[in-house]
């Protein structure tokens, strides 16, 4: 078990957005997280990445507790993410966005740069090349020098994934990466996710596109009203009556 | 002791009037209007001009100056804030453009009136005093406190019982929701500036009368103390501003009496600092003010 959530609760006022959810992501796995609107999926990702504190419950990465830690320490432990409404740095280029993502991997002391030491220049060049390589992996190499705000929606999504990959995370949290995409783009993202998994990163994939989730994920957790109502392989989940009742109906056909 | 209370309430009611305007605009726009102190100052001069050159009695000059303040406030909105609506940096940009406008207004005043202190002519206001209990209170002080109370009551009535007030509160809570409900947000913001600046103008005239001191830099120190008041009261909270204004007035007067006059100004900022560090939402404020 790489990432483990146990009885995680998050209440706002009197309402529980996440109500005692438990799930586990194994190393190397692509784990889907689906559920109707408002089920608490994004909240769960926010809890894992430390953007909001959990009211109760534990979140562990390889045994180390994540809940209660500040976001940047959680990232340092190997958890990165993308966002539902894409949070690239708009004024930075695609390449620079990915470069920021590599923050944790860079170890260039500032004084070396102040003294114009060649080791600093070497490190910088290496970081830039790595960032371009990552953009290449997501098919955005030609658009590397474009400002993020000038990119199309689909392009921004891909850059965001590259940025999340830049620090070689152990677990990547993807928040609805294919929202608003046409089938061709969705297939490209699916391939990308499979590639990420093959490269050794685990993925927790929040998605509305159930067909995609069934195809790409090894295991799926289904959330409704903040509670886990099913957990298993795609086949198991697809035939689970509770899931069908709560959620499917139009969306499985999508 | 009673004397200190009288003095404190007197000073505090002027602070409260000023702060009410400040916090109203902040509540509605989420922006600090640093031209507020310039309106405060300009309208004190306006009252002076009306009394000295147009020979108006203060009874008439006061409402005229207040009206002028309201109109000036709408102009401030039009020039400094409206063009920035929708821009992502509108908070800091609004701060800066209001500073710019304040500078321009101050420059105008110094050009026409000179940098020195002006005074209201003798006889503008009553000069008698009364003794109540062990305290001496002047007629002027009574009038000023009374006017402040009336304006506070008027503001409360406006906000709670009129349609305009309801709309202002709606926009303060969520401009988007208000727009969806059919409120003309720009016009409401303009109206808020009118009310806010009218209050600031009133504070300015009263301040000028209270201390018989009208100068181009009179807004500066009040502006900064006004910040302490709205932070203490809770940004965007009217009752908070009123309460905190009175509290600060009392605090200042008692500090002078018990500790020494050199700490008089420092106490406001000490309070400001403590509040921001320990309880940023102040006495009656609401939203969380810290980072995610």
């Amino acid at each position, binding site marked *: 078990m790489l990432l483990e959530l146990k009885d995680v609760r998050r209440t706002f006022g009197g309402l529980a957005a996440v109500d005692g959810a438990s799930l586990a992501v194994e190393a190397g796995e692509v784990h889907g997280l689906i559920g109707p609107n408002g089920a608490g999926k994004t909240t769960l990702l926010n809890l894992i990445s430390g953007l909001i504190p959990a009211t109760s419950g534990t979140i562990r990465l390889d045994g180390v507790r994540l809940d209660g830690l500040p976001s940047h320490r959680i990232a340092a432990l190997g958890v990165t993410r993308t966002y539902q409404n894409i*949070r690239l740095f708009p004024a930075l280029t695609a390449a620079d966005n990915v470069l920021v993502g590599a*923050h944790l991997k860079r170890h260039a002391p500032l004084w070396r740069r102040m003294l114009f030491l060649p080791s600093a220049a070497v490190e910088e060049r290496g970081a830039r090349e790595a960032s371009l390589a990552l953009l290449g992996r997501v098919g955005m190499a030609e658009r590397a020098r474009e400002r993020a705000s000038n990119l199309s929606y689909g392009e921004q999504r891909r850059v965001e994934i590259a940025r999340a990959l830049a620090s070689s995370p152990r677990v990547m949290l993807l928040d609805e990466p294919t929202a608003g995409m046409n089938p061709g783009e969705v297939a490209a993202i699916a391939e990308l996710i499979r590639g990420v998994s093959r490269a050794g990163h685990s993925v927790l994939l929040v998605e509305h596109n159930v067909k995609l989730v069934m195809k790409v994920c090894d295991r799926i957790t289904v959330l409704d009203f903040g509670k886990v109502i099913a957990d298993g392989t795609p086949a198991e989940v697809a035939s689970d009556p509770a899931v069908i009742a709560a959620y499917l109906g139009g969306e499985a056909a999508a | 002791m009673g004397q200190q209370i009288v003095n404190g309430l007197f000073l505090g009611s002027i602070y409260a009037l000023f702060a009410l305007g400040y916090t109203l605009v902040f509540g509605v726009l989420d922006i600090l209007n640093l031209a507020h102190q310039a309106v405060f100052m300009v309208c004190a001069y306006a009252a002076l001009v009306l009394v000295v050159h147009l020979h108006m009695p203060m009874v008439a000059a006061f409402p005229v100056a207040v009206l002028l303040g309201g109109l000036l406030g709408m102009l401030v909105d039009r020039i400094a804030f409206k063009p920035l609506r929708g821009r992502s940096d509108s908070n800091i940009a609004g701060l800066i453009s209001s500073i710019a406008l304040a500078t321009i207004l101050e420059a105008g005043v110094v*050009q026409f009136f000179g940098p020195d202190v002006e005074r209201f002519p003798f006889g503008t206001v009553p000069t008698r005093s009364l003794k109540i209990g062990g305290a001496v209170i002047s007629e002027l002080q009574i009038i000023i406190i009374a006017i402040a109370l009336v304006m506070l009551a008027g503001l409360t009535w406006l906000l709670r019982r009129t349609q305009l007030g309801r709309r202002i509160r709606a926009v303060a809570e969520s401009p988007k929701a208000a727009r969806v409900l059919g409120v003309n947000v720009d016009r409401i913001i303009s109206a808020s500036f009118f009310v806010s600046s009218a209050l600031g103008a009133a504070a300015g005239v009263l301040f000028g009368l209270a201390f018989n001191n009208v100068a181009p830099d009179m807004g*500066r120190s009040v502006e900064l103390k006004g910040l302490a008041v709205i932070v203490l009261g809770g*940004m965007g909270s009217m009752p908070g501003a009123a309460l905190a204004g009175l509290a600060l007035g009392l605090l200042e007067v008692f500090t002078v009496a018990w500790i020494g006059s050199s700490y008089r100004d420092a106490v406001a*900022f000490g309070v400001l600092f403590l509040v921001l560090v320990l309880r940023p939402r102040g006495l009656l404020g609401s939203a969380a003010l810290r980072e995610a």
Partner: protein
Amino acid sequence: MSLGGLQDFWLTYQSTVAFVGLNGLLALSVYTTLSCGQLSLAQAAFMAIGAYASAILTFHTRAPFALNLAVATLLPALVAVPLGLPVLRLKGVFLAIATIGFGEVVRLFFVNLDFTNGALGLTAVPQRTAIWMIYAALAVALFVLWRVRGSRAGYALEAIREDEPAARTMGIDVARYKLAMLALGAAFAGLAGALEAHYTFMVAPGTYSFTRVVDMLVYAVVGGTGIFYGPVVGATFLTLLPEVLREVGSRVGLQPGPLRLFVNGLVLLLVILFLPEGISSLPGRLRARRRARREAHAA
């Protein structure tokens, strides 16, 4: 131009040149925190701390000026740390207000301190500052900011400016970077304060008011906070402008004081409304417009 003419020019405009440099350094001190999206207005207080510390050292010790300046640079940076820890957590305008409050507290502290002559301040501070020192300090500041930009820290700062929570989820320790920038700005301001005190012969609390730090902010904003040299451009422009205007104004019958104020205000207003990225962004904008026009013609 004859050598004598050059000497006359220098005598007349020497102090303007000095202040262009000083104001540039002060503008940079406000810029450091703006570059990561924070509006801190405490720099006048840091300037005061640097000025007073160095003046006191001058009066009571025989320390070389370099040591004075070092203390004036480091002491405010140290003070910035306990200030920053609680205060940098605050959002936007609340941070600004807290730093304004801090600035006033420091100013009033010095006004009431008998050891430094209270409100009158210290006078007859020997002039130990030479113009080259001011520009050397400015050059060092620009150099530091130049090298930070494009470094790992520089990218982190830009990320913080754009989107703090997202920056955090990339492993960036936002609080530490903000604190470092506050301390750096404090160091710049303290250094400028010491240099100014030993140039103008005096240290008085009235110099380090809210108005002063607003001036610094205006220089930075008018020059442009998108690039590290922007604030220096703004400081130069706004320091030279009144000199130019004084000639014009006296012929038109306008007082120099209010005229300077008016023009400062007007320039600031025009910049914030129509050229929000400052004067330093003009060349880039013109180039882009020319390129667009060329492309339209070619099409």
